[in-house]
């Protein structure tokens, strides 16, 4: 299924040159003393019915990108084209309409559900707000069928969130997102807090829903093993920038960027014959308020060359893949022992 030739399908989301920085303020006057460079020059493309995984460690900016797409943050620069229109240029009314088509599911379902509101009302709230369903009865029927769709008993719709387990709560959040008929769902670490047996259930559910409803997912996660199962394409982020993109299988089989290589090698294997490897990436991630010059990864890169410390590599693209590393520059290798 993942090898399906979906190349012709419509581009639903195109992010170009996105920059979202947060000001650092200090002093009595709260004047700006610097920037947290959360996302710089981020470009992504996601086709209808496909899943793009945005992968990276904490502080890499992946969540900022997701929030910027929902316009929960205000980017300084770039374009976010959704269904052909730039979300950054919409007025309030148009943005509201667009938001019906873009939903988000967070990591912690308990924090994103209202503890004092019945499940039925939480799911119906969006429908009411966007005028879906002619009356309360119709909406009630729709809530029932949505709950059934996410494999929950419709008879539980009058309960409160605390009466459900973590996995069931995440199903409620999925039902709530589906209630307004979105085309794109941003999943921000949506399965990261779940136990592995429950995680498998939710991943299967997300995939079934995608197939049925032609949904697109922007799947934001730090967990590469989940990515391989769910995503068609991957974008790896490091310190505010995309460092590698490509189709999932090809990227996993043959990662080009040293950071991607390190990330993949750092996942503990469950093969009893594989253990005890040296840590593939040393040191800590530098601060996003003061990223290193040149390639942001050069302070931790095992293949670092002199030019990496001063020059900033571009995305070098070839064969549907792209890598922000001088080693991927066409004809630019063979530095020997530099």
């Amino acid at each position, binding site marked *: 299924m993942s090898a399906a030739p979906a190349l012709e399908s419509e581009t639903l989301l195109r992010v170009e040159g996105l920059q979202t920085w947060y000001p650092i303020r200090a002093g009595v006057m709260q004047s700006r003393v610097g920037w947290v460079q959360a996302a710089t020059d981020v470009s992504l493309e996601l086709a209808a019915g496909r899943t793009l995984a945005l992968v990276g*460690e*904490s502080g890499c900016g992946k969540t900022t990108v997701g929030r910027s797409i929902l316009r929960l943050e205000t980017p300084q620069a770039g374009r976010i084209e959704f269904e052909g229109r730039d979300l950054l240029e919409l007025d309030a009314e148009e943005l509201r309409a667009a938001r019906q088509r873009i939903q988000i599911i967070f990591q912690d379902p308990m924090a994103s559900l209202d503890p004092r509101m019945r499940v039925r009302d939480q799911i119906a709230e969006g429908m009411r707000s966007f005028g879906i369903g002619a009356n309360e009865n119709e909406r009630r029927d729709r809530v029932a069928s949505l709950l059934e769709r996410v494999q929950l008993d419709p008879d539980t719709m009058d309960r409160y969130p605390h009466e459900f387990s973590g996995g069931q709560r995440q199903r409620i959040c999925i039902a709530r997102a589906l209630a307004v008929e979105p085309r794109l769902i941003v999943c921000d670490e949506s399965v990261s807090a779940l136990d592995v047996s*429950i*995680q498998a259930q939710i991943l299967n559910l997300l995939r079934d829903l995608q197939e049925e409803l032609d949904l697109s997912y922007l799947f934001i996660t730090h967990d590469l093993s989940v990515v*391989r199962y769910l995503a068609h394409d991957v974008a790896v982020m490091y310190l505010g920038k995309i460092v590698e993109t490509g189709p999932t299988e090809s990227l996993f089989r043959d990662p080009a960027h040293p950071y991607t290589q390190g990330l993949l090698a*750092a996942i*503990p294997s469950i093969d009893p014959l594989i253990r005890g490897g040296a840590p593939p*990436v040393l040191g800590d991630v530098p601060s996003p308020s003061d990223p290193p010059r040149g390639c942001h990864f050069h302070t931790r890169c095992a293949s670092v060359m002199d030019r990496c410390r001063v020059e900033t590599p571009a995305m070098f693209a070839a064969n549907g893949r792209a890598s922000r590393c001088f080693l991927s520059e066409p004809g630019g290798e063979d530095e020997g022992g530099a």
Partner: protein
Amino acid sequence: MSALLEVRDLRTTFPSSKRSAGPDDGLPVVDRVSFDLSSGEVLALVGESGSGKSMTALSILRLVPKPGRVVAGEVRLGGENLLDYPVTEMRRVRGTRISMIFQEPMTSLNPVVTAGAQVIEAIQLHDSIGYADARARTRELFVEVGIPDPDARLDAYPHQLSGGLKQRVMIAMALSTRPEILIADEPTTALDVTIQAQILALLRDLQRTRNTAILLITHDLGIVNELADRVAVMYAGRIVEVAERTQLLSNPLHPYTQGLLRSIPARSAAGDRLPEIPGTVPPPSQWPSGCRFSTRCPARFEPCADVMPEELRPAGGRRVWCHDVARNTNPQTDEHGEEEA
């Protein structure tokens, strides 16, 4: 070989909210848990949330949060039952013979005291040595746990350190009294994967050079594979299977262990459907009287829901509690007795 730590039939309960709890009348979040930890060995307690793995560790240290309490069993360290120790004596054991590191180094460190001062204090609490000596020893420990630029880090406050460095400080503090046993409760769960790999390598090196026994609490079978010698799998307060690492990962016997391994996405080829374990862990108040996994088990048959399975001892020092394994095992090999207790 006699074990350093012997846990026998440990039972920890929380009063059920429904009625006032009598002496043995609560919900058993840890139930008849028994295992040995040998000197220098790494034993992993694996399970999902609510399995009782962390509560087992806290029971060993007698740190179970109230109103929970240990109601039965023994925790023998070097032959003596820690559950009989007076509180002051237990406090000494905690500092010097058993140390613990937690998932969240940020919440375990005091934010207004420098990293160095916290380790120095831990050393001076248990050792009557002067400040200068304690500081020198702290510096050595910082070097040993791989903290770069140790002199500057001695005087750094926790918020000035990354998550990985904070966990290294916690490890330095835990090792400062040369404990025989280190209990590591999800030591890398809050860390990024590249930092996790660094901390796992560090723990492995320290375990080798110091020969410290480690009780590793984790939900992640990949981490088990990286560190453990033996594994005990827990489900709903009980151990369901104990085996040596390679046996457990390559040939799990209990249906829960099998399901757990299968549902890891990395094992599935892209495009395949992930094998699920259906349902969820029932809350303690709804645990079946028989095998607690019986509500979700694909191999369930007639006795499972009502009769608690007996311990089986297949070859290779393994232990497993499962009616299905019992009926599929040759009756000659599951008899007790030929191996030591």
